[in-house]
């Protein structure tokens, strides 16, 4: 009995428990109002809404873990998508899967620039990436000549990745997202480098004293965030069938940050898990799918995302405070 309550306590005290409970409660409330919500079909729609957020969210999570923020991912996504789209359009003989490499590489390069400026000049990442957010968007207008890449240029097999499925009727694009999440989990939890990201975020002063090279790890984190946003860019072309310089990826960063923060990743660095982020992403996806089902105007979405960020910050704060309090009590006992 005692061990059972202890186990229960252990599970409930994990950060992911809160978001999982929220997700379940939300689904119950919505399906009580509109029973249609609780169906496999809804699950499919939710899962289709989130792969881009999930992929970019893995990168943003690593950035937050290292106690930084990357506001430029929306522009990186747009930039990579445009470059890949233009390659599809202007180099028709190129094999279509090459687009993945182009987009990921472009994203990684842009992310590396972010990391280089942040580490080289020791600047706050939020201001630097606010700058590159508009810098990248501006350059993408220049290189694309402000022209949209129209649907007929996006390769059929790429578009089909969002529609056809290898097994269980789950589209390829969702498999890609889940694979990225799995790799991120292994990387963060089971490699030395992954743990070093946590170490840097938990205590940036102590990390170098423990022999961790902060600069290369920080560079890596920003590069990964950029690369994943780039990958999300080519999947944008797959999912939506076009790339538009003034639409693709605009405001994407706020959605991703909302998802990651809701998933229990602390903005103070060092705290957060892949599972939590996945749940956070699914929660936001469920909210955006539930709104039209409930007959609520889609205009509510941004307000809800904003409120969700603030609530998540407050929860994170109270969890941290009670953690500190119980630790002090235990130390005294």
């Amino acid at each position: 009995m005692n061990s059972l309550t202890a186990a229960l306590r252990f599970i409930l005290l994990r950060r992911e428990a809160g978001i999982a409970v929220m997700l379940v409660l939300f689904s119950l409330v919505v399906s009580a109002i509109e029973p249609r919500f609780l169906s496999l079909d809804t699950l499919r729609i939710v899962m289709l809404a989130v792969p881009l957020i999930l992929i970019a969210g893995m990168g943003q999570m690593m950035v937050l873990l290292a106690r930084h923020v990357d506001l430029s991912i929306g522009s990186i996504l747009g930039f990579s998508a445009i470059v890949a789209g233009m390659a599809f359009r202007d180099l028709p003989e190129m094999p279509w899967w090459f687009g993945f490499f182009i987009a990921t590489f472009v994203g990684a390069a842009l992310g590396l620039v972010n990391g280089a400026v942040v580490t080289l000049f020791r600047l706050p990442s939020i201001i630097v990436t606010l700058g590159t957010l508009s810098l990248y968007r501006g350059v993408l207008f220049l290189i694309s000549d402000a022209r949209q890449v129209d649907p007929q240029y996006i390769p059929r097999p790429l578009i089909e990745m969002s529609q056809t499925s290898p097994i269980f009727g789950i589209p390829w694009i969702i498999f890609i997202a889940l694979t990225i999440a799995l790799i991120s989990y292994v990387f963060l939890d089971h490699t030395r480098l992954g743990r070093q990201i946590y170490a840097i975020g938990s205590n940036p002063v102590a990390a170098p004293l423990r022999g961790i090279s902060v600069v290369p790890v920080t560079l890596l984190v920003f590069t990964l965030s950029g690369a994943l946003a780039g990958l999300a860019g080519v999947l944008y072309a797959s999912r939506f069938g076009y790339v538009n310089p003034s639409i693709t990826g605009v405001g994407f960063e706020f959605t991703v940050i909302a998802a990651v923060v809701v998933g229990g990743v602390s903005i103070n660095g060092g705290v957060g898990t892949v599972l939590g982020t996945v749940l956070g992403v699914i929660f936001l996806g469920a909210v955006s799918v539930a709104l039209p089902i409930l007959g609520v105007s889609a205009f509510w979405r941004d307000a809800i995302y904003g409120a969700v960020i603030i609530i998540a910050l407050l929860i994170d704060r109270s969890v941290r405070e009670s953690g500190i309090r119980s630790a002090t009590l235990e130390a005294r006992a």
Partner: protein
Amino acid sequence: MSDTSIPKSAVQDAAPVRPRWKTILLRPEAMTFVLLILATLGASLLSPFFADIAYILESFTYYSEYAIVGLVLTLVIISGEIDLSGAAMMALSACLFGITYQAGYPISVAILVSLISGVAMGWFNAILVIRFKLPSIIVTIGTLTLFRGIAQVIAGDRSISKFPSWFVGIDYQYVLNLPIPVIVFCVVALALGVILGGTVLGRQIYQIGTSAIAAQHAGIRVNRIKTGLFIGMGVASSVAGLLTASRLASVRYDLASGAELQMVLIVMLGGTYIFGGRGSIIGTFLAAWLLVIIATGMTVANIPINAQLTVLGLLLIISIIATNIIYSRTQR
């Protein structure tokens, strides 16, 4: 040289006093001023329009709204915090103004509603940052999404217009040959400049930014001052929102969308230190004109608005790097 001279080693220990011209030139504001002159010269080579002060004043009205918010943001950043939600507060307060007027209330009531909403939004930010001790940088990312989201909820995607004719077109109303938005900007700059540079409160703001804990121990009411600054941000944003509503003769939820970049850029170009404790209103004042000259110059040179983002983003990064280097040199 007699033997009463000071030992050589002691002379070497003391750093030589920097000549006054050097300390002035090393201030980032001086850099802003030099850039302003260079930009004006460059722009007037580009187009004879720039020799015309009336043209510059007219162009300034398009940016005066961001510049007014930028002035208050300067104080917020000097005090060691940041507020990225200014543009969203502009949009929400302007939409509240439009909704209230459309509901049949007189325009004075609508203006009051907008100003009160500014106070409320600023206060909301302050509560989250000060009462709940959350980092302002992330809090205001949350509230910027929230405020603009609420604006979208109350205004939908239609634009609210049909304001009375006397309210519309404040940028074409002149007092002393100056457009009213320019006057508002100058008055706010003067007031904040005096507060920051000439009062105890101003020194306290610098002290909070240098070390909030030390300031607290020195008996400065840190929380009260920071709360006041966040509320000031809200009020300045709602004034800017009203000016924009008057200039455009309509409001929409996407008013000033993405303008957090321009606001932060004006402050950073003016040489305010991103980590707090240093900066000046005169710098922000000059930077606002610099930004206007650069942006208008690009428009005259037929560079599309979207491509101008490249330059603005680059300027933001360069200006924080430059300011950082200057301050780290003069820190000792």
